[in-house]
């Protein structure tokens, strides 16, 4: 159900990198030989007469998988397209991404989905999976042909960008899930509570005179939807958690045995609404909004305790002219693929092994194979220099858009090489090849 333009199978020896894969238990300095795009040998003192990459002082991780990105195709190619979005993913160490269906037109019918998959086979640098919408046109009124969409390759269903606000429609989607299968991913927000809000509601919004989005806008809908999912025995995934109350709502639901998982994004793990007092930068405007330090800590604890299952970027590119406007006028969203690992690693909020694990944990939730560094597996790996410091620029991204909330920050951890589905999809230009 993943599509990409195949890259020539890699034949490369990565020598002497610190190999860390929490799932296989590897945590040592090792050589990894990749032949024909598969991991052929893991050991010490391996010899290879082909391409050899010196991994000394670097780390080799299983490649990252992002269950939540916006590639903007079809219809919004001025923000991003399949080629630029997946190039951005590769530069961030991602070996697979899942694209959201809130495009123009919406991915709500099999023909639209099939044409997207065809395009991905021509253009996508790393494998892409596609979600279809829960309701036609994201209008929240009528279910899509979920069974046919699944047959056409939809990984699951989401109205991301909007909640499925009518409880009765969500219930029917969950009933229909028993036939169609596929995860139902939910953007949780009660529009009657969010209103015209543009940032987190609290002290900072009071100071700035901006309309706030209260935390309960998210958590109340999570609680409602968890109850519906529990009643129907459905499987739901909650997107981009931002508030402490939401983490508590998920923990409650999990304790009751509801089949619920969730994600948090790098910006919610590392930034708070206090940033807006320093500079009212539209790159810091996203939905859900940056919240307080207490919320940030709750998300970090949630990842450590397992209440939060994975890290997802919600990579949301917007064109420069769309973001170069007053804060209230700007669209919501930040790019995130190229900065995901470095942002979380630099903030030092989680142990390294947990960062690595949570950055690929989204795969399993979406029904995709999880990358593992193991002999016989397709090579899905990323080589990173943890020591390398770099400044996130105003421009110069692989993504077509520049609206990165980390712009101007110095981060540690630079992706040197990404191998996805067995092919080398990214190589940092300065990489020394022995």
């Amino acid at each position, binding site marked *: 159900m993943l599509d990409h333009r195949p890259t020539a199978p890699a034949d490369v020896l990565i020598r002497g990198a610190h190999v860390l894969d929490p799932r296989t238990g590897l945590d040592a300095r090792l050589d990894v030989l990749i032949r024909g795009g598969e991991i052929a040998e893991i050991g010490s003192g391996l010899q290879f007469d082909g391409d050899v990459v010196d991994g000394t002082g670097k780390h080799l991780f299983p490649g990252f998988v992002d269950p939540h990105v916006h590639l903007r195709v079809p219809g919004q190619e001025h923000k991003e397209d399949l080629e630029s979005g997946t190039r951005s993913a590769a530069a961030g160490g991602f070996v697979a991404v899942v694209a959201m269906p809130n495009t123009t037109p919406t991915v709500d019918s099999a023909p639209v989905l099939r044409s997207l998959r065809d395009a991905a086979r021509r253009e996508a640098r790393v494998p892409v999976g596609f979600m279809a919408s829960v309701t036609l046109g994201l209008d929240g009124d009528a279910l899509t042909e979920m069974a046919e969409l699944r047959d056409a390759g939809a990984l699951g269903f989401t109205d991301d960008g909007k909640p499925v606000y009518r409880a009765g429609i969500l219930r029917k989607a969950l009933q229909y899930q028993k036939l169609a299968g596929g995860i139902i991913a939910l953007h949780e927000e009660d529009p009657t509570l969010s209103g015209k809000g543009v940032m987190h509601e609290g002290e900072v*919004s*009071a100071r700035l*005179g901006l309309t706030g989005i209260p935390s309960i806008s998210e958590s109340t809908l999570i609680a409602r939807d968890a109850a519906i999912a529990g009643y129907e025995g459905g499987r739901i995934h909650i997107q981009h958690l931002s508030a402490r109350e939401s983490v508590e709502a998920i923990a409650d639901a999990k304790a009751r045995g509801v089949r619920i998982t969730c994600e948090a994004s790098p910006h919610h793990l590392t930034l708070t609404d206090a940033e807006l007092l320093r500079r009212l930068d539209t790159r810091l405007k996203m939905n859900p909004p940056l919240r307080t330090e207490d919320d940030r800590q709750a998300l970090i604890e949630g990842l450590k305790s397992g209440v939060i299952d994975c890290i997802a970027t919600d990579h949301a590119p917007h064109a420069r002219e769309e973001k170069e406007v*007053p804060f209230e006028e700007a669209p919501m969203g930040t790019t995130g693929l190229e900065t995901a690992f470095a942002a979380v690693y630099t903030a030092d909020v989680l142990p390294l092994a947990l960062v690595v694990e949570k950055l690929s944990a989204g795969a399993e939730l979406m029904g995709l194979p999880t990358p593992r560094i193991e002999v016989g597996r397709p090579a899905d790996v990323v080589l990173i220099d943890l020591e390398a410091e770099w400044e996130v620029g105003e421009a110069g991204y692989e993504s077509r858009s520049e609206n990165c909330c980390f712009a101007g920050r110095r981060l540690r951890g630079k992706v040197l090489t990404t191998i996805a589905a067995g092919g080398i999809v990214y190589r940092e230009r300065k990489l020394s090849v022995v």
Partner: protein
Amino acid sequence: MRHLLSIEDLDRAAIERILDRAKTFTEVSEREIKKVPALRGRRVLNLFYEASTRTRSSFELAAKSLSADVINFASSGSSVEKGESLKDTVQTLSAYRPDLIVIRTPHVGAAALVAGWTTAGVVNAGDGKHEHPTQALLDVYTLRERLGSLDGLNIWIVGDVLHSRVARSNILAFTKMGAKVTVCGPPTLIPRGMDALCDVAYTLDDLPSADVVYALRMQNERMSDSFVPSLREYAAQYQIDGRRLNARQVLMHPGPVNRGVELAAEVIDSPQAVIGQQVEAGVVVRMAVIYELLAGRNAPQPAISTPIPA
């Protein structure tokens, strides 16, 4: 100081310096020729994206009293209606080489954005619900004239705090000048988190403790969003009238007043009200602000790296 975007840009000493200078300008208005040549040849651009009577006219009068040339630009009837972005409008108008841009917009932070797009100085004349720093300065000026000092004063700001840029700038300015501020209004119209900035009350029960009562405008359109059930109910709970205002309290209002809503007619016309003095202070205080930003500064040169569209 290059721009006046927020009261946060000023410390107490700077506020006092500006207001002391404003005081010296009162004499100009009393002359037969109400003008000084201080800023002859300088250009001030008034860029107003929202309706305004007193702010726009007092900025214009202030600039002209200092002999600056004034260009007024209103968004209606302009290329803004053809969809020109704020950035393009500002860069286009910057080609006229203004020394100062006075801007009012319905959007928070817009004045700060403009400051990044032009080489002119920028005065925030109201950015959405965020701030209106010159209003706060003229309010402090008026209170200094009336009471000498703000130190230790108990100031109540009553009404729709949620939607009020005047309230936000005044909380900062009054606090910097040594007063203690309490905001009071319907709980639906006091933003969550306000208690980090000042005291919060939901009834007028403790209003007698106030030295100054600052009433905010209650806008009709707030009814449609259920912020208050009716103007009648609002007036019953929060209207400042002769019964609630005592003889030693000073009454302020940023205008325009809704008679019979936030204020009863008898207090508007009472000697405690300084609403007229506030308007009068507008001109001299804005003269002082413009003078502060322009006098002694060389005319700005456009940066070579900033492309200015024709």
